[in-house]
């Protein structure tokens, strides 16, 4: 008797080519993406499956490549800040900061304390923003829909604060070479204070929803293991490393922008699985809230941009009354400022790990070369190793725990 579907199977050439001996059972190649909701962007993963077990995974990236590094060479130094926003669209301010610090190293100019503290506060907000989006979407992938709404509720407040400071919700370009884009708005203390007083109780809410949730714990504990040696060898950085027991945070180890004046802890977990990464990021949110509170209470006064008239645009008032200010304004706006020839590398701790800007100047008003060492690109390289041998259902949890942004990967 004819088996059902026999005709159908025999006409598919791909199936015929695969060996069907018991020693090498039938394998299937499955395309995940490029349009798949759980990859959070345009990522294609070619999975080789045996039943439901992943034998090998090969990520295919580049769908979001927009040539930002080439574009840098066409803009002048200050204009290029707007490009850094578009690299990692969830941690724009971290990118702004890394680029600004690298260029300031070359110039070199001194940044006043208020601008430094403001930069710290804003990058911590961007860390909260990024972790909230991660938690919401990651929980949604695993099946906890409520988290998504809770997290986006708080994220909305953060975006309102960004809008208040910079006039933009996402592409803020708020951190500029030489300080900040705008003076901190009137009443920012109230807005930030209101948010930050309420925030720790919101994190409690997330923990209440997830920590003892049996579905959440069973889908995260012991899933997505990858050894520390493999991670270091494959270029992983950030919360993934800290969930494997290494106390490595660039904010502590190589402090930048006055991070050494803040009192915070680097959360470390040892379980090295999806659960551990969740714990690390959740505690990081609490620490970020602590840093923001300290910045709010101890914000130094004084100028918010550097005393470097050849780099920073003059105040509007001065422009109308002082000849020099008008000349500098004209020069900066028309041709930009020149940066002495040289090269510098500046890395900072972004929500995803080490983000590094390698900047080369040839002494003109445009960057000669800017290379972005992005955390998502480094982290994603460890994906095949992490997915090897686990179930396809667990791959969603494992993928999500990496917290990559495809714009950051492809640039």
């Amino acid at each position, binding site marked *: 008797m004819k088996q059902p579907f026999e005709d159908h199977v025999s006409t598919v050439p791909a199936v015929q080519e695969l060996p069907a001996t018991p020693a090498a059972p039938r394998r299937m190649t499955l395309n995940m993406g490029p349009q798949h909701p759980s990859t959070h962007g345009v990522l294609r993963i070619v999975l080789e499956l045996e039943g439901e077990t992943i034998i090998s995974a090969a990520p295919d990236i580049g769908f979001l490549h927009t040539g930002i590094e*080439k574009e840098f060479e066409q803009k002048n130094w200050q204009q290029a800040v707007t490009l850094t926003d578009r690299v990692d669209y969830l941690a724009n301010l971290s990118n702004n900061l890394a680029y600004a610090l690298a260029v300031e190293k070359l110039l070199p100019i001194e940044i006043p304390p208020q601008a430094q503290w403001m930069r710290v506060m804003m990058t911590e907000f961007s860390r909260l923003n990024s972790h909230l989006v991660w938690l919401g979407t990651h929980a949604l992938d695993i099946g906890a829909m409520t988290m998504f709404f809770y997290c986006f509720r708080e994220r909305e407040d953060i975006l309102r604060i960004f809008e208040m400071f910079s006039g933009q919700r996402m592409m803020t370009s708020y951190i500029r070479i030489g300080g900040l884009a705008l003076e901190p708005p009137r009443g920012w203390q109230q807005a930030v204070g209101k948010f930050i007083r309420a925030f720790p109780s919101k994190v409690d809410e997330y923990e209440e929803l997830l920590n003892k949730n049996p579905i959440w714990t069973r889908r995260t504990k012991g899933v997505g293991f990858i050894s520390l040696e493999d991670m*270091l060898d*494959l*270029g992983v950085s950030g919360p993934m490393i800290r969930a494997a027991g290494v106390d490595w945070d660039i904010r502590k180890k190589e402090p930048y922008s006055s991070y050494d004046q803040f009192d915070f802890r680097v959360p470390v977990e040892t379980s090295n699985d999806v659960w551990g990464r969740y714990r690390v990021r959740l505690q990081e949110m609490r620490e970020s809230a602590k840093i923001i509170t300290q910045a709010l209470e101890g914000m130094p006064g004084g100028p918010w941009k550097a005393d470097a008239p050849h780099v920073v645009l003059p105040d509007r008032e001065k422009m109308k009354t002082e000849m020099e200010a008008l000349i500098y304004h004209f020069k900066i706006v028309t041709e930009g400022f020149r940066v002495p020839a040289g090269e510098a590398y500046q890395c900072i701790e972004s929500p995803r790990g080490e983000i590094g800007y390698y900047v080369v100047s040839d002494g003109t008003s445009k960057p000669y070369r800017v290379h972005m*060492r992005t955390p998502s690109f480094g982290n994603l390289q460890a994906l095949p190793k992490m997915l090897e041998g686990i179930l396809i259902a667990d791959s969603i949890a494992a993928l999500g725990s990496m917290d990559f942004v495809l714009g950051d990967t492809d640039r």
Partner: protein
Amino acid sequence: MNHPAIVESKEAFGETTLLADPARIVDLCRYLKDSEKFIRLSGITAVDLHPMEPRFEVIYHLHSLERNQRLRLKCRLGGDTPEIDSATGVWRSANWYEREVFDMFGIVFRNHPNLVRILMPIDWEGYPLRKDYPVHGYKYSYPSE
């Protein structure tokens, strides 16, 4: 740090740059990883100095967690079809970094396990980050230019 492949050492902005002999780069990388504890390769990139000669600089950013130190390695390569040995045998992370450099600059890494384009489409012509490559590519031309 003392290795015959190191040609020159430079300090600037608190960063150390070593100029290395490209012919012995793998040797040097292995020495830095094993003896000097630079267990992390944080990235590889390149700079095109067109029309200067040697035209390309390949740059390795190393990081040692133990010593909390960073190091920049630099190799100069000449010609339009430069080649250098791959560091994938030393750090596995070099795999994608080198593919990106190949994709953008056309620098060939010998003994690389899978040297194909990574960000650009597989059938792309030309190397976008070279200085003689126009911003809008070769495909389109505009009457004003």
